[in-house]
């Protein structure tokens, strides 16, 4: 019963995602609030994870004194793991919100790659970013190029980072831990966990690259609109 409801809802949502853009309104703003909240919690977690993750990969400068008097690397790793939990739980809530929220909440999880109109809009957006056309078809964050980037660079990468992250955590938490039981299959793909470390590390740079483009696109859009309304 509940399963059918969800399925019907999902179908309607997918239809709405593919529909033409609607006007911005108060209603949308309210249903958008959880997504905004998630966005900033997520952004903070990613910032923390990136910084601590880089330091964990490279090591800190030597601390002086006895080992018993220091716990710097331990705290850095603790911060990394805690932020990892925040990100993972946030991501799960975000998936939940995609299912019960409005159509736009679904966008980063659902890309109808087989639709011709999607590629037409993507082509239009590429032309817009290449300064070949004056107006974008949809505002940034709603446009199809952004949706593609979100899906392939953000959603996929974060999923990968959560899975490999918990698998690596499971190694430290012992092979009896739920993390290892749930994510240990990663080591059937890469038996040597050094490979998992390497991929996890490359994932960091995909996120950094994504963040660069993401922040630039948003700032540019804001200033462009501000410029337009001057």
């Amino acid at each position, binding site marked *: 019963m509940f399963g059918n409801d969800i399925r019907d809802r999902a179908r309607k949502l997918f239809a709405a995602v593919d529909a033409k853009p609607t006007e911005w309104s108060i209603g949308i703003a309210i249903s958008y609030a959880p997504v905004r909240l998630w966005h900033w919690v997520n952004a903070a977690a990613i910032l923390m994870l990136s910084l601590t993750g880089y330091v964990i990969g490279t090591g800190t400068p030597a601390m002086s004194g006895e080992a018993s008097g220091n716990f710097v690397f331990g705290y850095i790793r603790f911060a990394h793991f805690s932020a990892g939990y925040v990100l993972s739980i946030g991501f799960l809530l975000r998936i939940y919100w995609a299912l019960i929220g409005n159509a736009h909440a679904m966008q980063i999880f659902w890309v109808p790659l087989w639709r011709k109109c999607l590629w037409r809009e993507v082509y239009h957006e590429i032309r817009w970013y290449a300064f070949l056309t004056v107006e*974008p078809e949809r505002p940034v964050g709603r446009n199809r190029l952004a949706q593609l980037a979100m899906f392939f660079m953000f959603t996929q990468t974060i999923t990968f980072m959560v899975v490999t992250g918990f698998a690596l955590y499971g190694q430290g938490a012992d092979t009896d831990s739920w993390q290892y039981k749930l994510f240990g299959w990663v080591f059937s793909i890469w038996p040597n966990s050094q490979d998992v470390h*390497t991929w996890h590390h490359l994932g960091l740079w995909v996120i950094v690259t994504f963040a660069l483009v993401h922040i630039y696109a948003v700032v540019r859009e804001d200033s*462009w609109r501000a410029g337009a309304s001057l």
Partner: protein
Amino acid sequence: MGGATETFYSVIRRQGMTRRSFHKFCSLTAASLGLGPLAASSIANALETKPRLPVIWLHGLECTCCSESFIRSAHPLIKDALLSMISLDYDDTIMAAAGHQAEAILEETRAKYRGRYVLAVEGNPPLNEGGMFCIDGGKPFVEKLRSMAEESMAIIAWGTCASWGCVQAAKPNPTGAAPIDKVITNKPIIKVPGCPPIAEVMSGLVTFITTFGKLPELDRQGRPSMFYSERIHDKCYRRSHFDAGQFVEEWDDKYARKGYCLYKMGCKGPTTYNACSALRWNGGVSFPIQSGHGCFGCSEDGFWDKGSFYDRLTTIKQFGIEENADQIGLAAAGVVGLTVAAHAAVTAVKRLTHKPDRAAHKSKPS
């Protein structure tokens, strides 16, 4: 060859050992396997009643370091393991028979102990050119391995060669050397990786199988959990320096002399499952990290192909040039950053030159 019904206990009694010494040995073995106090009596019972386990030890493409390690076992002493606990029917490196005599033993064991002998394999078979890169007894080794595996109870894959492939399977692997589990798929295979495995791990495993007449619990990778369930890192005596953030920066710096963590020197302890930091080597004398050198992960899959032994990050060869994840990531982020900057500049110029145009769009909702 030992008689089929001869037990371990009857052998050592014949050698003049007292019953008291026998029980001492059982307690010691139980302790070194990490078993409870009651296990000593079940070990004693097993060794008194069970016939000795026939073992066939084959050598493929290998360097004999596994055998070298095995004969240095201290707990139990290798003489006990070899001469009393198991019946090592065939091992061309240390057996007295040679030539046709030796090959005849293989056939005999295969027929006499059908489904009851353990096949221990040191090294691995090369598969290219029909296995011609390793000829053993006039035939490709891979054929000998297949025929002996057919009737065996279980297979022990000694060392990284038999478990993962090791140096002969490292890129570009011209002989097509393949680990045992790629060739034999229908028998239980116990992987005992390490280059070589620790002597006490090898003899401990043999003791376990002899004592309990079954295979030990294996992990996801097919390794015995009792020796391979934790990483070097988890029991490393320098772990406190890792958590404190105290790392060696250079091989000859003061931190190296203070015995700080070797993480930044490329120690693979955090990604290597083995018992070195718990059991140590040469009768518990030391292990690489204790001697001041990082672990290079010899018991892990493909450890020869993961770049330098002295880097934390793997060399990634797929990009044509040898780079690690950080260098590739920085380059990618740099290129994207420059593109973004250039795009921003063009945007600014466009905005300045198109200002009249944009004013016309003012009323249009965006």
